[in-house]
């Protein structure tokens, strides 16, 4: 199986202490993982994704550092360009930037940013970031010429188009393997339609919580974190990977559908989740 597995930091789980984030990164570095991911939420008890990754960068040497995903339009593009380039430098070119418009209007309200027109702003942001690094007025330059790889997330046709036109691939927002397969098909179609050479990178994600002691807490977190989706939250809870068997099926399903890298995000912040996941992987 050529699929790579990443693991999320518990930076989106409420009440996780700072040292846990650091120890999590250290331990993940020793595990069978290709990357370390963070989620992004403003109006919530969650860490700033880029700050969390910067801390993880100091604790690791090998792992790729991934925003899964960052809500681009919440942020000023020039400041974001500086932050991304700084993090790329600090990590020695290990950064992968997943960007999307996000699904929560309240995050836009909290940032004082207009929710309308967010799609067009993300497109502009994607184009502008590389321009800024090229102009060189706002340093440092990213560690890699042209900047880190970009992945665009989202479920809409606009997202597929954006990924194809301005990024290096597509980051799926979670769901069963067949949902990923459908989105991957559309992402590939958009890639060819835009006349891009080669293939888009295809990334996926899912939430896990292993062990009987973790499930109840994980379900509570999912219900809280995704409360805004209304009835859909039950679907998300159902998707939670709570047994080694589900992990194996999920990973194999994603591999089958052509996923390049699958980031498994923790739904509880206990450090032993890392080893439990490592043992469960096919």
């Amino acid at each position, binding site marked *: 199986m050529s699929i790579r597995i990443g693991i999320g930091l518990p930076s989106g789980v409420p009440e996780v202490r700072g040292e846990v984030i650091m120890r999590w990164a250290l331990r993940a570095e020793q595990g069978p993982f290709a990357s370390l991911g963070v989620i992004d939420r403003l109006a919530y008890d969650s860490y700033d994704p880029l700050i969390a990754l910067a801390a993880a960068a100091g604790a690791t040497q090998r792992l790729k550092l991934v925003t899964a995903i960052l809500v681009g339009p919440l942020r000023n593009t020039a400041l974001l360009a500086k932050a991304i380039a700084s993090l790329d430098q600090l990590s020695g070119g290990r950064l992968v930037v997943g960007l999307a418009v996000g699904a929560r209007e309240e995050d836009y309200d909290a940032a004082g940013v207009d929710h309308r027109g967010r799609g067009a702003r993300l497109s502009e942001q994607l184009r502008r970031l590389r321009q800024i690094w090229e102009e060189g007025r706002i340093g440092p330059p990213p560690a890699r010429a042209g900047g880190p790889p970009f992945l665009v997330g989202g479920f809409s046709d606009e997202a597929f*188009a954006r990924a194809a036109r301005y990024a290096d691939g597509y980051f799926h927002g979670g769901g069963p393997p067949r949902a990923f397969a*459908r989105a991957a098909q559309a992402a590939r179609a958009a890639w060819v*339609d*835009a*006349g891009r050479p*080669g293939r888009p990178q295809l990334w996926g994600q899912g939430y896990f919580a292993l062990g009987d002691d973790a499930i109840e807490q994980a379900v509570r977190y999912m219900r809280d974190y995704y409360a805004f989706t209304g*009835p859909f939250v039950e679907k998300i809870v159902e998707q939670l990977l709570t047994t080694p068997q589900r992990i194996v099926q999920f990973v194999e399903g994603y591999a089958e559908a052509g996923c390049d890298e699958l980031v498994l995000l923790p739904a509880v912040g206990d450090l032993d989740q890392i080893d439990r996941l490592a043992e469960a992987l096919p």
Partner: protein
Amino acid sequence: MRVAIVGGGPAGLYLALLLKKADRSREITVFERNPPDATYGWGVVFSDRTLAEFREADYRTYREITDRFVLWDAIDVWVHGERVRCGGHVFAGIARTALLGILQRRCADLGVRLVFRAEVTQPSDLPPHDVLVGADGVHSIVRSWYEDAFRPTIAYGRARYVWLGTRRTLGAFTFAFRPTEWGLFQAHAYPYDGRTSTFIVECAETTWRRAGLQEADEEQTLRRCEAIFGDVLRGEPLLSNNSRWIRFPTLRAHAWHFGNVVLLGDAAHTAHFSIGSGTKLAMEDAIVLANAFEAHRDVEAALRTYEGERRPIVEAFQRAAAQSQRAFETTDRTIRLDPMRFAFHLLTRSGRISYDDLRLRDPAFVDRVDGHLARERDRLRLPPPPAHLPFTVCGLRLDNRVVLRPAAACGATDGVPASSHRDALARLASRGAGLVLTEIVAVLPEGRITPEDAGLYRPEHAAGWAAIVGAVHAEGARVGAVLGHAGRRGATRPRRFGVDVPLRQPWTLLAPSPVPYLPESPVPKEMTEADMDAVRAAYVRAARMAREAGFDLLHLHFGCGYLLASFLSPLTNRRTDAYGGTLENRLRFPLEVFAAVRGEWSGPVGVALPASDRARRGIGEADALAIAQAFRDAGCDLVEVTAGQTVSDDDPTYGPGFLVPFADAVRNGVGVAVLVAGGLASIGDVNTLVASGRADLCVLEPWD
């Protein structure tokens, strides 16, 4: 738990009996406007899968329903005086009154309170309750009380239809199409008891008006429809039941539950009758909602679970129904197909059933289709599946319907194709495609999209391409040169870096009007007549070089916002001379270029044309058909449909086969051979599209 259900149709009754059966202590009351024996509608249809769900939900009513069922497995298509039959589909029909009777009796036996002739107009008309269910149809009263929470929208279809019945007993699901002096009429008919059939008549709004049916009373409508469909009816009269000509309302609601109020069936969603019955969806809703109350004590949680589970399923159904509805709204186009193809097109209209599915259901039918397409009278030889049918375009015979082309190539220097080009095309040819196309080859250096694009504008280019053509021919495929000029999308970096990223030192771009593609793109030069002469001459020169190189086919890329496409679209062509303004003017220069190439090249010429700008005020279907028609009349042998990219802020769609609806419209609306690309990955897709007459050639994009 006290449950008040407004609406005594199948959904409300079924929910009532399931809730009561699960817990007899529940107080369930159903309020129905009409008396118990009122009959509205004729018959309803269920598939075998729905029946399995009924069996599990309530065996007793399942038994009664199936005892009364008529079953059939065939679909008949009556068109052009022929009847085409396809078997292997399982359908079950029952009279709506019989179904209601069964459900009412079961409710009464279980102790559900049924209140008939109940006029419920405001919430205070109802007794105290813990849950309120709106199962009162598309014009739901319950929904109207909480409009702000449910936020319903109703979209009306373009066609008029009337729901009739007949004593003519039908042996199959029957679709009949009848051209008349006023336009095309179509019937959807199916049996539902041993004697009677539902008979829906449908036509375009314009046809309906021309036939004077907006003034017709019930009796006149019946006589008119009997006259039109006399042969299908075999002289049996049509029956009316308070039937009126209406347009189908597709209802969607932003939410299906609010507090302790929940919508069921047609009150929450409708789907066009041509794909299945609303009754099926409504009763499936009832099953899921009843089960949700088993899983959750909390009302809110139960309602949330119900909506979470049903919504994706219903929405997928509504998407397929919308496709099916569109197919029936555009039959005046597809009616040009021969009966076999027309039937195949009809059977595959919703995108849910493919060539392979039909082969499973009725192998003999698909064999007949294969044989018909192959026009193979000789029974000893097996006709190939549609994808493997040869196709002849302007004297050029292609071995099959599969076209392959490389992803954007790169690595050319000064337009000279690299050895990687040859390897890429030879590899594609070796996969067995009948036709291999090049990537877009520039006719002028400043017509290149990127500095690494290949060209056909310098003497050494022809030789470079000759070697590539030889390599493809050696693999047994034919090869077409795709000629293009990037226009305002030129002078960008190689597409490894994303599209439309301007070069640091761009060359001068040409366009009909000085409008940049992106804010950071260079402003193109508004073309003068001299510029146009130069471009026209460059195309002719490229055609000549293509002939020298030994290409079998020319394909002119006039889509995706490149130079000639930007003449066609009003969004990019703002000229006030003879080359801008009306569609006729916007077509002028592209047609001039085409005619010049046509004069130079006697073999097959295809053109990639915009079927839609996917942007407001841009090219839409009517323009697209007029454009394709103009090129067909000018001698174009093959049209490729493209969509979007005319402007950078378009509104794309990227599902599987996302260009197929455009191909269908152009091929059958204009009567020209069509090449379609866009997310087609399997030979099965090609079989379906060719057999149904939606396209003639398909570009496959296998991703492995």
